């Protein structure tokens, strides 16, 4: 293992830490965390990774890290960095393998007490209806090559076109569920092959579907605007672009390793390999990444449809009664061309968010019409035993972090440590005693995903709320969870 290097930090205020410019850094780093979290963050190599990102050409503003920062590969997880359209780069390592991994939230017309006695039936049926774990898929969803191309071009729009969900869902998805510059010809045959049987699958690891309820309301007005009220039943879906996205990233890294050499870009870590935004390699990556992002949007849309069907089967009620309406869908592994004001001047930037969520303020044109007055909904899932949060984007985030905030709890234990800590325990029974019914395709997943393997998401959210780069609206608590 590479030796941990100590990274110099200057505490700015209760929530902000500056990493001064040293060595090959082209800008400073800025980390959002409180004192206690910083103690834990220093234990791994993520701060070094913030510094590494600051070394990349054309970076604008700080190399940023959200409070859920942890050691990733290349960029830290929880990292945000913006690059100038003309002088900057795009890096597949700044997006990650699971391109457009993201979260969506549905509200409902149901109260917690109405489904409490039926939660086992709902969870067990979700596990039947939604393929989870390695290698499973539904026999009734088979894509031929032509259809797969359409998925990559049209994303969630394709899914709705095929009868998965409703047209109004699209208004409530980041980018309306479709990134427009997608070019399927730039996706390798191997990536297509890996993706073909994986559309409409949850995958393994930290991906999940969670049925929960609104436990706390912090901002009545915003909650009302989102259509959320105390004790209302909610559903969260967390998954991404599956093998297709992993392969697009893998293919692109190989190209970018050559490209970085070709363009004379010095890399502090191979995983940060990149190409100028204006180069053929850079543009082709963005067009292939868009395909994977669209695949992920379609994936979450299809799963949403099966969640609705599950409620209909188990509760014997129709859509007008369960009203599982989509509140919003966010990407948390993505790079996007956006316009931001930098020192009073508008600039086109490629904003990389790796384990970070877009958090646009009220009145931003990319915020859906219905949320114009409250800001973009931001969905922050926690571990399966504690809670999750709904926030809204703020002007503070727009000015300080290119409209970005945290994405989740962030791991504190390796999967290996988590398994060790779970050994001999009955984790599912422990959770059931707390009123949370959990089922997984593989028992190993439950051990790896024990609640204490994660930071307390409440601490993470308190930092972004305190720093003004996100505003707490409601807290959600789990009742039933399916894992991959």
């Amino acid at each position, binding site marked *: *293992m*590479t030796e941990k290097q100590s990274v110099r930090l200057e505490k700015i205020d209760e929530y902000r830490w500056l990493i001064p410019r040293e060595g090959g850094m082209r800008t400073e780093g800025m980390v959002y965390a409180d004192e206690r979290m910083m103690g834990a963050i220093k234990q*791994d190599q993520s701060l070094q990774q913030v510094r590494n990102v600051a070394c990349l050409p054309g970076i604008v503003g700080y190399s940023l890290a959200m409070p859920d920062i*942890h*050691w*990733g*590969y*290349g960029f830290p*997880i929880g990292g945000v960095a913006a690059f100038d359209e003309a002088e900057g780069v795009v890096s597949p*390592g700044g997006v*990650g*393998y*699971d391109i457009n991994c993201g979260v969506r939230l549905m509200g409902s017309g149901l109260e917690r007490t109405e489904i409490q006695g039926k939660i086992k039936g709902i969870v067990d049926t979700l596990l039947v209806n939604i393929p989870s*774990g*390695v*290698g499973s898929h539904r026999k009734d969803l088979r894509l031929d090559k032509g259809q797969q191309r359409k998925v990559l071009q049209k994303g969630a729009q394709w899914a709705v076109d095929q009868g998965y969900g409703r047209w109004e869902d699209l208004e409530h998805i980041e980018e309306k569920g479709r990134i427009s510059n997608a070019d399927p010809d730039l996706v390798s045959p*191997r990536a297509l*092959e*890996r993706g073909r049987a994986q559309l409409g699958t949850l*995958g*393994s*690891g930290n991906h999940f579907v969670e049925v929960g309820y609104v436990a706390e309301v912090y901002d009545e007005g915003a909650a009302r605007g989102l259509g959320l009220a105390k004790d209302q039943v909610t559903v969260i879906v967390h998954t991404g672009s599956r*093998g297709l996205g*992993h*392969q697009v*990233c*893998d293919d692109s*890294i*190989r190209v970018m*390793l*050559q490209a970085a050499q070709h363009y004379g870009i010095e890399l502090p*870590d*191979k*995983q940060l*390999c990149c190409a100028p935004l204006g180069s053929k390699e850079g543009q082709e990556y963005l067009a292939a990444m868009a395909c994977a992002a669209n695949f992920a949007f379609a994936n979450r849309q299809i799963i949403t449809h099966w969640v609705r069907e599950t409620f209909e089967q188990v509760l014997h009620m129709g859509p007008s009664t369960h009203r599982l309406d989509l509140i919003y869908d966010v990407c948390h592994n993505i790079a996007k061309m956006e316009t931001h004001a930098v020192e009073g001047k508008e600039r086109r930037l490629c904003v990389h968010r790796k384990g970070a969520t877009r958090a646009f303020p009220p009145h931003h044109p990319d915020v859906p019409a219905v949320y114009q007055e409250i800001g973009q909904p931001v969905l922050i899932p926690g571990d399966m035993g504690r809670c999750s949060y709904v926030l809204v984007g703020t002007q503070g985030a727009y000015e300080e972090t290119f409209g970005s905030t945290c994405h989740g709890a962030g*791991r*504190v*234990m*390796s*999967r*290996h*440590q988590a398994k060790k800590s779970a050994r001999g325990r009955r984790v599912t029974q422990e959770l059931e005693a707390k009123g949370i019914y959990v089922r997984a395709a*593989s028992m*190993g997943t439950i051990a*790896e995903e024990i609640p204490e393997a994660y930071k307390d998401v409440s601490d993470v959210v308190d930092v972004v709320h305190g720093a003004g780069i996100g505003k707490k609206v409601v807290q959600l608590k789990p009742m039933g969870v399916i894992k*991959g």
Partner: protein
Amino acid sequence: MGYELLDHTADLMIRVWSADVKGLFQEAARALFAIITDLEKVTVHLSREVAVQGSGREELLVAWLSELLYLYEVKGLLFCDFALTEINEKNVKGVAMGEAFDEGRHPIKTGIKAVTYHQLEIKEQDGRWQAQVIFDI
């Protein structure tokens, strides 16, 4: 010759060592499949020839492991034994031996998304070769 799993917060790191580079590639492949399944339950019923290109040993190691991961994920094959027939700075050729995944017999322990280049390292020290690789899981 052998391998160990090392702690890494979000992902999984392996360290592999061997007397020569061929052995290093073979052991790294075994480590990959030991993470995915229980190797004792995999027996040799078939073999696949694997050939990958790259530039330098480190990139070749990622390419070799990624190819095996692909054969598992898309073709449903689990391997327990590997024999390298050729390795130079640009090419690796070898044979992977194992059987088709059988849900009833093969427990799947961990899904691996990708083989990363992060902190990838192959070095020779005191006459023995050592590699470290991080898997994204």
